[in-house]
């Protein structure tokens, strides 16, 4: 498989702390790659570097084989990379359609559009279409998102990222705060997105979840990649072993 997004030898210091010490990572289109590691292994820092939120000190990042500089989240977004944040980055008082189009509103045609007037009906129509396509079930399209259940809210947050991403979606613990049924719904959305050819990177602490939804697993430890698995062949023991340092693969870094 050819990698959509590839990172090599990423180094990132915060003062004297070495968060990433030459970490590498890759994800191909149409696959879910889980990025796992113990607390402080560098997962969040790596994701920040790959989504433009932080600029690495050294190392190379390539998209479709071309080297890129991700100097801001806006740049990353323009290159087709979206991120779902752990802390539900939605506006609870706005409805699902408004959240889906936040920062990318559709304006009316003609003079009204030039004045900044929004085409709310068109946004609602497109939003309903996208939610249906992604299997996000909502009672109605115009209730404030804060009145939805946690799972629905997170589904909308996930949907917002995948609708706008053209290449890669990062999901930082998208199911952390959810119940069993709600979690399953979010995982369903992830699978659908994968089946449409998107590259999905899942950061999770939940090992059974990692094994059930991902195609491959990459393990970080002390700021480096220490192991890579095909999810179908890996066991819980393998993952935990790699995370704690009991198991290392020589060729992984």
């Amino acid at each position: 498989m050819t990698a959509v997004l590839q990172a090599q030898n990423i180094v990132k210091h915060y003062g004297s702390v070495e968060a990433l010490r030459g970490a590498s990572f890759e994800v191909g289109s149409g696959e879910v790659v889980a990025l796992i590691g113990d607390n402080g292994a560098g997962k969040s820092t790596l994701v920040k570097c790959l989504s433009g939120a932080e600029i690495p000190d050294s190392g190379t990042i390539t998209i479709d084989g071309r080297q890129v500089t991700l100097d801001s989240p806006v740049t990353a977004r323009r290159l087709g990379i979206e991120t779902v944040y752990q802390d539900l980055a939605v506006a609870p008082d706005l409805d699902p359609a408004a959240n889906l189009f936040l920062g990318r509103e559709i304006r009316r045609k003609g003079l009204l559009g030039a004045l900044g007037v929004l085409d709310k009906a068109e946004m609602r129509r497109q939003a309903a279409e996208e939610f249906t396509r992604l299997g996000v079930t909502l009672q109605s399209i115009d209730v404030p998102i804060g009145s939805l259940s946690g799972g629905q809210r997170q589904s909308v947050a996930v949907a917002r990222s995948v609708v706008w991403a053209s290449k890669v979606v990062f999901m930082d613990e998208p199911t952390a705060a959810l119940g069993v049924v709600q979690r399953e719904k979010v995982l369903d959305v992830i699978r659908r997105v994968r089946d449409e050819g998107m590259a999905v990177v899942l950061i999770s602490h939940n090992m059974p979840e990692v094994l059930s939804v991902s195609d491959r697993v990459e393990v970080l430890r002390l700021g480096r990649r220490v192991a890579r698995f095909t999810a179908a062949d890996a066991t819980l023991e393998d993952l935990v072993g790699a995370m704690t340092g009991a198991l290392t693969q020589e060729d992984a870094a």
Partner: protein
Amino acid sequence: MSTTVDTLPTVERRSFTTRLLSANTFWIALVLLALIVVFSILAPDSFLTFFNFQQLFIETAVLLVIAVGMTFVIITGGIDLSVGSVLIFAGMISAKTMEWMSPGQDASNAGWGTILVGLVVAILGGSVWGLLNGLLIARAHIPPLIVTLGTLGAALGVASLLNDGTNVRTVPLELRDSLGFGTLEGNIPNLVVVAAIITVIFGFILHTTRFGRYTFAIGSNAEAARRAGIGVTRHLTFVYLLTGFLAGIAGFMSLAYFQSTTISGHTTDNLNAIAAVVMGGTSLFGGLGTILGTVIGVFIPAVLQKGFNIIGVQPYWQMIAVGAVLVAAVWFDQHRRRAQNKR
């Protein structure tokens, strides 16, 4: 899996009735309507008259313009205590400018050229304070309550310094006869027409444009707005600039109506505007509100005052009644939020 409630993929709008009943504005409109009905029954001959309502509209026009700006600020989750002082400052600098431009410092007979300069100066004067508020709040990250408490004092201080603490004596008669007491078609006061036009324009901006949408988004979750690529700092600065701009216009309207800079006359305008906005269903926590609600919120205290006056109840009861409605409105809003966050 068969026990989940939300299995039907219906992504439609709610019915009109459902949306109506869930709107804060609808309930507060009912309160206003009930007040009007009660007073009309108690004093049919004097309350429900054209003259009475004409006076009601005139007396609320200036406050309405301020409250429209305040609605934007409160929707972003902020507050602006300085509007009353900024209004006085705008009126003062405008009146002083018109005096300076007139022979013998007497602006009474000033022409339209001078009056237009006065208008521009009032608007600029208000906007400068608004911009200062915006920069301190959005860029320096000082809490809005503190920043506008500071400019509340400062704007009034500067206004007083401009004329040694006294009111300006001469205001163009032309201004009084046109904007102040003039009417459209002999019936509708010009002051009310101006307030209505401003309200409609900014209601349109708030509820249909991207600027309005961003105002709600920032108040609802500023971090989410920032991550969505919205220029939060810039937008917030602009919202406070807007309140100052409207306070500037209100200052000019007040000047035209009262024939005076009314240095001591607008000290509670800020609280009246905030009360009107909050009573109208706009949430002090941000993210929620309507201009229509604010219009209703401006009228409730005014109707109460007029009504009590007419039926011979001591006017102090109005303060108590408004206080009660205000507290009830905020309690209702908090209750709604808690219910929402429980899910």
